[in-house]
Every structure is written in structure tokens, then in C-alpha cells.
């Protein structure tokens, strides 16, 4: 398919006459220099590469709050006065933090997928008389497939993405649970005692006094987790989601004449681009985290909170 690059003449009316060049990419073998490069960088494959940056950012944007919620639940469970819930919370943080990520991503995801299909199979195909495990094969009826094999590719991709978010959330939630558990204990006990002296119930003192004050203690640990999460996205390919590292490797590998745009091994340049992306993302995160630290320190009995109080006075 020919790809045309049209300069945005509407935005630069003064240059309309000069710049309205039309680049045609119909026969890449005849192209040279910048023209070749412009066509090369706009192939469908490169578009998929650019889109995968969006996939990674979307994954981060969705996973971070979900993992935080898992962590909060885990920390609350671990503090519970109800023993089985406490065991569950402590077991969750201990086990998931102990299992290597890569083993978790390979084993847990296939097990989760098969568990979902097994349950759907029991509901949808009660008359099925063949065994589900046949040697190494896992066989469920067609209607139990998740997603259905007739579904368009985007459904499969969305399903893979959802599984990825869920798995990331479980792993990072376990770490976040431990961070939040520690932060909850770091809030000075006098604060809780005072709250109870004012007649607040345990629930009220938890939500109104403990939770608002714990974030500043949790922030260093949570920001570490965020930085690690940013760099953990190549694990996505284990789940069949094509992330930026997959595409950089695929596009950068040397291409023979069978491709429209043959070139030698360019992986170095693609990985340099990724390096820049990750550094920019890290810098932006630092700026945002610094602001959050300032915001959360307001009125706190910490060094920064005290400094803010004096500056304002």
C-alpha cells in the first residue's frame, strides 16, 4: 500500500506552496537518502512499533492503580484481627514476593487461562464426555475457549492485555502490600491514641487518621516499585503482548532482500531510542513524585512537613 506523507499545510499556510511535497513510497528499492528513511520509518511495522509505546504507557497507567489497590487490600488483610484473613494477607505477600517474576509469568498465566477455560467448559458444555487432559493436550469444547477462536484478533489481544494487567497487579501488589503494611506501622501511635481519645471508633481512626498520614511513609517504597514496573514491561512478550522491546528487536534485526527495506543489524539504534524513552519516563516520574512528596508532607510531623510549616509562618 503506498504511504503518502502530506505536510500539514493547514497549520502553516505561509509555507503551503513550498512545502506541499508528496512523498511516494510505492517502490522503496528505488528510493535514496532521507526519502528512503521517511518511507522506512512510516511502514506498517513501524506504526505497530510506535503504537506499542502507547500499549506500554496504557499498561502502566492501568496497572499502577490496580496494583496499589491489591497492595492496600493485602496490607489491610495482613493487619486484620480476624486470623484467617491475616494469614491470607501475610501468605499473599510472602509467597508472591518469593516466586521469581519470570516463573510467575510463565506458570501462573497458563494456569489462570486454563482455569478460566475449565470453568467455562463446565458451564457451557455439561454433556462433554471426553477427558480435558489428554496426554499433554488441554482440550475444552470450542464454546469454552477464552477468547473464542472465532473472535477477531483484537479480542485476543485485549484478553492478553487484561491477563497481563492482572498478573502485573498481583506481583506488584504483593510488594506494595508490604510497603503499605510498613507505612501503616510507621504512623506515630500517639496519633491513633488521640483519635480514639476523641471517641473515634477503630474504623474511623483507621480511615480518618491512619490512612491520610501513612502515604508519606509509603511513598519512597512505592516510587521504587513504580520505577521497577516501568522497566518490567518486556515481560509482556511472555504473555504474547508485543511491547516496545519486542518491536525494537524485530525491526532492528538485519533484513535481507526479501524485505522491502533491507538493512544491516540496526538493533543498537533502536535500543538507543528505547534508552532515551526510558530515561525521559524516569525523569518525568521523578518530577511528579517530588511534587507528590511536597503535597503529602503538608501538615505532617516529618522534617519536610515541619520545614513547610515554618516557611509558611
Amino acid at each position, binding site marked *: 500500500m503506498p504511504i503518502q506523507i502530506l505536510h500539514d499545510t493547514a497549520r502553516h499556510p505561509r509555507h503551503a506552496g513550498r512545502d506541499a511535497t508528496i512523498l511516494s513510497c510505492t517502490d522503496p528499492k528505488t528510493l535514496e537518502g532521507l526519502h528512503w528513511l521517511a518511507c522506512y520509518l512510516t511502514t506498517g511495522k513501524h506504526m505497530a512499533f510506535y503504537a506499542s509505546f502507547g500499549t506500554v504507557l496504557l499498561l502502566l497507567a492501568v496497572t499502577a492503580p490496580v496494583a496499589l489497590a491489591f497492595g492496600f487490600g493485602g496490607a489491610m488483610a495482613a493487619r486484620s484481627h480476624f486470623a484467617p484473613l491475616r494469614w491470607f494477607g501475610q501468605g499473599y505477600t510472602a509467597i508472591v514476593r518469593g516466586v521469581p517474576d519470570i516463573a510467575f509469568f510463565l506458570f501462573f498465566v497458563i494456569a489462570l487461562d486454563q482455569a478460566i477455560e475449565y470453568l467455562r467448559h463446565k458451564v457451557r458444555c455439561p454433556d462433554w464426555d471426553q477427558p480435558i487432559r489428554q496426554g499433554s493436550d488441554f482440550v475444552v469444547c470450542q464454546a469454552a475457549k477464552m477468547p*473464542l477462536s472465532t473472535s477477531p484478533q483484537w479480542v485476543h489481544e485485549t484478553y492478553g492485555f487484561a491477563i497481563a494487567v492482572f498478573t502485573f497487579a498481583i506481583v506488584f501488589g504483593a510488594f506494595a502490600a508490604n510497603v503499605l503494611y510498613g507505612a501503616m506501622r510507621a504512623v506515630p501511635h500517639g496519633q491513633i491514641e488521640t483519635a480514639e481519645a476523641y471517641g473515634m471508633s477503630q474504623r474511623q481512626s483507621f480511615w480518618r487518621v491512619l490512612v491520610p498520614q501513612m502515604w508519606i511513609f509509603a511513598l519512597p517504597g512505592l516510587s521504587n516499585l513504580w520505577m521497577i514496573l516501568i522497566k518490567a514491561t518486556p515481560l509482556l512478550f511472555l504473555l504474547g503482548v508485543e511491547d516496545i522491546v519486542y518491536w525494537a528487536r524485530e525491526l532492528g534485526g538485519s533484513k535481507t532482500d526479501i524485505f522491502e527495506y533491507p538493512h544491516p543489524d540496526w538493533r543498537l539504534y533502536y535500543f538507543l531510542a528505547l534508552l532515551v524513552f526510558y530515561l525521559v519516563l524516569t525523569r518525568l516520574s521523578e518530577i511528579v513524585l517530588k511534587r507528590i512528596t511536597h503535597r503529602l508532607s503538608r501538615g505532617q510531623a516529618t522534617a519536610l512537613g515541619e520545614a513547610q510549616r515554618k516557611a509558611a509562618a
Partner: protein
Amino acid sequence: MKTLILTTAALALSAGLASAQTVRLGTEGAYPPYNFINDAGEVAGFERELGDKLCELAEKTCEWVTNDWDSIIPNLVSGNYDAIIAGMSITPEREEVVAFSQNYTPPSPSAYAALSADVDLENGVIAAQTGTIQANHVVDTGATLLEFPNPDETVAAVRNGEADAAMADKDFLIPVVEGDPDMVFVGEDIPLGGGIGMAFRKSDPELREAFTAAIQTMKDDGSLNELIIKWLGEDSPRF
């Protein structure tokens, strides 16, 4: 809520009826000229064209899926797609886990590619893709095996001196060697495996029979040989 459940059930039911026809084909997408992701971002190559033709003959609707080579068999047996069509040679080890169609290429030679002709293939360091018949062969020769997850990286390892030679299917190496004046073939071609076939779950004999029959049709009318000449070259063995 009730309508929602009903709609979902109805959708699932109708999809279940139609799904008998859809076959998901798993490939690697990193093994030109057999299968690769072309510049438009789609699966292309010998096996793309062959697979589409076979689906047409077997009257199936097919969908292409790419999967990492390392986990391509586990994902087949756990049902994430229905067939592998990824330059996979028929070997007894693989036949313990999956069932192959009849071969769609004759047993084709493997070869060594290196930067100089006097490389020691017996004692040197040889790069091959993990889990391939070539990797097994390198171990058998006594040379030091250096494994990579995809074939492109085996060639890169030779170029940067990490390995003395790369071993792969000759059909894959021909364009590599022709496109690079520094690269040469070393030693004799070595016939490995029983040709390339499609892999299916053992519990899925009907599908395997349908594709084996379609391959037979293409062998008989000569269209398979035409595809081999088009993608793998005049010198590649034919039926």
C-alpha cells in the same frame, strides 16, 4: 442484568456453532523466507502463502497468530491456537508431544555460515536457535553450542565474532550469505530431519487429516513445487 446474561449466552452459542470452521495458525514470524513479519506488519513468506492456500483447499477460515519459538509447542497443546506452521522439521522427539501433517517440504539440507572458510566446525563455537534440529546436531558433533532465541541473532553472533559459525536451514542462510560479501558457506550441507510439516494437537486428528489431504492435493497438482521455487529458490529440493 438478565438481558446481558442472555445476550452473552446467545453470542457464545452462535459463536460456538461457527467456530468449528475457524482455525488459528501459530507461526514464529522471524524465519525468512519461511515466515516473517513484512514491512506492513503482517505475517508473510512461504508458509503464509502455503497456509492460506491450504486453508482454502480444506475449506477453513484461518487466522494467523505469532508466538515466540520457545513456547510455540506449549501454547499449541494448551489450545491457544490450533496448528503450528513455522518451519518446524518433523522429528521423533517432537512427535512424542504433537502430531505432524505429512511434510510440505522434502528433507532439506542445513548448512554452516561463517566469516571465513577455514573455521573449525568440530571444535569451534557454533550458534544455533534454541530447540531446533540444528542445535541438537551441533551438540552431537562435539562443537560448543551457543544458543539464541531467534535465528537472526545467530547470524548477528557470527558477524560480531561471538560465534565461529551459525548453523541453520540452508534456505534461511542463502539470502543472508548472498546479501553479505563477508559471509561464506563452510563445509558440506547436512540433511537433517524428515522435512517440514504442520504440527497439531494429538487430540485433533480430523484437523490434521484435512490439512494432510490439502497438502497432498498441492503435491499432486504441482502447485506446492511452484511455491517452493518462488520462495525457497531453484536449488531447494522439490517433490
